[in-house]
């Protein structure tokens, strides 16, 4: 990084204009343009390009939960979602014993897919609830 003498003098609080004499001061006066802030400009948007979104229809709903199997999936492994879902299992046992619940923790870290589990739910379940803790 280059540092020149004029810059160093500026850092010491000495205007480079001292080196140049009065013409520099005169030049400074000339540069004060009145009403410059009133000029109008058009600015370009800095935004990127969003993707179009493919919409998916939600899965058809059940007519009743009675006699059905409900998967309760801890989707991230973050604090507490497992405990919450296990409490939900207890609630179903006590309040809707006709509903069978199955608790599963999704494999892998929170962003990872778990096709084996989705397959299991499709084959054995009627509905699923996913919970994300924190």
């Amino acid at each position, binding site marked *: *990084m*280059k540092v020149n003498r004029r810059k160093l003098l500026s850092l010491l609080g000495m205007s480079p204009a001292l080196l140049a004499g009065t013409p520099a001061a005169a030049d400074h006066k000339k540069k004060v343009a009145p009403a410059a*802030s*009133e*000029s*109008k*400009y*058009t*600015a*370009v*948007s*800095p*935004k*990127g*390009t*969003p*993707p*179009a*979104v*493919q*919409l*998916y*229809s*939600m899965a*058809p*709903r*059940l*007519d*009743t*939960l009675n006699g059905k199997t*409900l998967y309760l999936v801890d989707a*991230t*492994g*973050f*604090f*507490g*979602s497992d*405990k*919450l879902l*296990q*409490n*939900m299992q*207890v*609630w179903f046992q006590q*309040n*809707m014993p006709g509903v069978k619940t199955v608790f599963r*923790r999704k*494999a*892998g*870290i*929170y*962003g*990872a897919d778990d096709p084996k589990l989705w397959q299991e739910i499709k084959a054995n379940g009627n*509905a699923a*609830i*996913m*919970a*994300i*803790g*924190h």
Partner: protein
Amino acid sequence: MCTRAYTELAHLTAARDGMPHLRQVFTPHPVGGKTSEELAAYLVNPDPVSGKQIMKEIIDDLIVPLTDDEKKTGMQAIAAGPATFGPDTLDNLQEAFMTNGMTDYLPIVIPTEEKVEAMLKGTSHSPDEVLRKPIQGVGYLAAQWGYTVRQVAVNAVMAGCKPEYFPVVLAMAAVGSLGLFGSTTSSGSAIVINGPIRDKLDMNYGLGALSPFAQANTTIGRSWTLMGKNLTNGGIPGDTYQGGQGNQLDYNNCIIAEDEKNSPWPPLHVQFGFKREDNVVSIFGGPDIRQGHGARGAGAEMAMFDQQISFMCQSMVGGDGALGILDPLVANRLVEQGYDTKEKLSDWVYKNTQRTVKDFKESFLAYFHLYPLALQGREPYATWYKLPDDAMIPFFLSAKQINFVVCGGQANAFFQIANMNHSRSESIDKWT
């Protein structure tokens, strides 16, 4: 289901994934650290967002027939907002950019068409060349927006870059995942620049190398955050940004121009397989950068910088690597200690930075991210989880996770160390 703290994120993520009407239920926040009794109570109390009793809401969500909106399919266009702002005064445009969340809340250079055209002269690439194609978001945090050379140029202007800096900014943009990483962990970035371009751009790698003493260092670093905000729709608190405390590195992203002349070792980009005469940008990400404050063994004949580096690594997040930022005085003393290559030093730090299995298991990272991998049989985690609690295991996964760069004014034998992983290096020359 998720907690109330993530209401906005949950709705927006579902919408970006093509399910704007996904039925969602919210509990109070947090669920972590609550007793079983407290969580059981959540279930019979109202959803803090809808006001409905949670279990009743869940049952209704499963059995109430779908509405027409919920059955909708097809493609839905998403708008990025107006293509231009104004005509208006510079002050009003500053205000418009700020209130629309397009700045870092410091004044910007207003990107007029003329300034953007001037920036584009800094590269031979077509303004319409696509650096990243937009892809429908799938999952976690950042929306998959795309961007062109021209869109990168707008952000480079805003950051205060000169056209001659533009190839560096384009190389950074080509990496794909930009600044303002949205995780709750508030991770930040550090960006290393190697090659002759450092001198061409008058970058500072001497005294105060990491402080705001050179336009190129300052503005190139700032562009990383602006690009993360604008090009990929990142950095929206509550939506694409969830960093609990945020990170002060986000203002400038710690631009490190390596002092290749005063370093006793080959520069970082040569370690990564580039030629010395190549110009290269390397991106690092992780939680923080900390001061080393000299060596172990103060007053001893041989200062033990290796031991101090290892000591500092002990409190890091092990999944993230380490990037040592060494003043040339430190690097040269390490050579005197016998580390005639960076690789020898990385290897020593890897072998001598260890912890017990118990410490590892009790770390946040292990509990949330690595234990699920161990359950899937992923090594070394599967093996580590089978070891006794007092067994010693390496802190890092490999010596390659530990990197070193050299910069600083040789005012004192100090160093800093970043708890950061190398994500990718990109040729700057490709973008001239």
